[in-house]
């Protein structure tokens, strides 16, 4: 029996999500998990006709959870790199984003060209932001942090680094919770990269189901609505 059968039999879709931060998946002030990915997952479960169960791991626990079958799928703001795809199967991308550079509001760095060999840049360990930045600014000095996007912004604000690089949608979402006008995002993206959900290679049924799901929700506009609310604007700020 395939993974879909198991899910149906169980009546429960188990999703490992990384509560990495707004706007994809985070805990709002009432202690409820919410965000773009979270709502998409709820929609998926609804369409399957089963309940959804979120398994709340941090980054370290995400992949083992999927591989050890604790979870049926991963829903995180994860870029399907070719290396990663050697190990797990990704769905079709449901949106595109890109790495951006951000600096302190009053920083002398105004454009991407101002970043020179000596500039200290903060990136997240193992993220696409890290590899993008190293491609575009091979000579900058890098400090790799672990522990989530807000930590990068904190490092920039505290002055440990001059600039930070991270996924654009994540940065925009996270900056929203800092005091207004503390951080400035530089014009332009370093890359254009897709985001996708992931399943195991032994679940082709679930994979093609998800691809179809993205196709349907794109066509009927539900995906676009979700992304417009969460990712392309700060509308969610008021409600959460």
């Amino acid at each position, binding site marked *: 029996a395939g993974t879909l059968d198991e899910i149906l039999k169980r009546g429960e879709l188990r999703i490992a999500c990384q*509560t990495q931060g*707004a706007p994809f998946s*985070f805990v709002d002030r009432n*202690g409820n998990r919410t965000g773009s990915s979270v709502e998409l997952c709820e929609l998926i479960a609804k369409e399957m006709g089963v309940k959804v169960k979120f398994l*709340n791991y941090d980054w370290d*626990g995400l992949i083992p*959870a999927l591989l050890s079958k604790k979870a049926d799928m991963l829903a995180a703001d994860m870029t399907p790199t070719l290396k990663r795809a050697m190990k797990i199967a990704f769905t079709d991308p449901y949106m595109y984003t890109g790495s951006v550079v951000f600096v302190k509001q009053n920083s002398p760095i105004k454009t991407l060209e101002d970043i020179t060999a000596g500039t200290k840049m903060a990136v997240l360990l193992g993220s696409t932001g890290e590899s993008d930045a190293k491609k575009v600014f091979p000579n900058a000095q890098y400090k790799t942090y672990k522990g989530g996007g*807000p930590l990068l912004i904190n490092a920039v604000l505290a002055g440990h680094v001059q600039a930070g690089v991270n996924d654009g949608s994540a940065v925009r979402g996270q900056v929203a919770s800092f*005091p207004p006008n503390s951080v400035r995002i530089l014009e332009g993206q370093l890359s254009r990269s897709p985001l996708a959900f992931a399943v195991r290679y032994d679940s082709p049924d679930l994979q093609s189901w998800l691809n179809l799901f993205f196709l349907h929700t794109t066509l009927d506009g539900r995906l676009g609505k979700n992304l417009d609310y969460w990712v392309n604007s700060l509308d969610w700020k008021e409600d959460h």
Partner: protein
Amino acid sequence: MWGFYFDELMHSLPFFLKGVWMTVAVSGLSLIAGTIVGFICGILRAGRNKILRAVIGAWVDVIRGTPFLVQVFIIFFILPSAGIELEAFPAAVIALSNLTASFICEIVAGGILAVPKGQREAATASGLSQYQQLRFIVLPQAMRTIMPPLVGQYVLLIKDSSVVSAIGVVDITRVGWLTVQRIPEGLMVFGLVGILYFAICYPLINLSAYMERRMTVVSTRL
């Protein structure tokens, strides 16, 4: 700027208290289980059976020598492939109990070996059995050496419990990480985390100091 976040943080307090409860539950259960297992292993480690001693010694080495996170992962993610399927909470308690037991084992063995040899000899000479010697003569005296580091170990256990958040147990530290995404003033959020741990640990540390005072006759002043 701190005022800006302070109200937000106060709003999250119930969430933090849930984390406190989880930390207390995980470490409390592990404390009990770890103490029992640790005492048994410690007694065996101080005993005569060479094979048991070596086996326990190797177990203690591996547990003490590898990161706790890895142990948690093995129990939660790798044991299922051997057919042992565990929920996050029991897996966390088992991992933490195992860690605690390995440390307590060393403490107990040390305490038992510190009881003067003459005590055991006197008990042997009056015909008490091995078990009776342990129960009535050796352990009651060993407790004096065991108690202070034991309580110290409990404090370490409570702090180590934060690692289990990696498998989705929402304890104080995890609440801190989740909150810091929304209230990005890490200093304040983790300050609160520190205060909450302090509130749990400080009474324990005082307890250990109290026991130490009760058990030592003269205090050294240099």
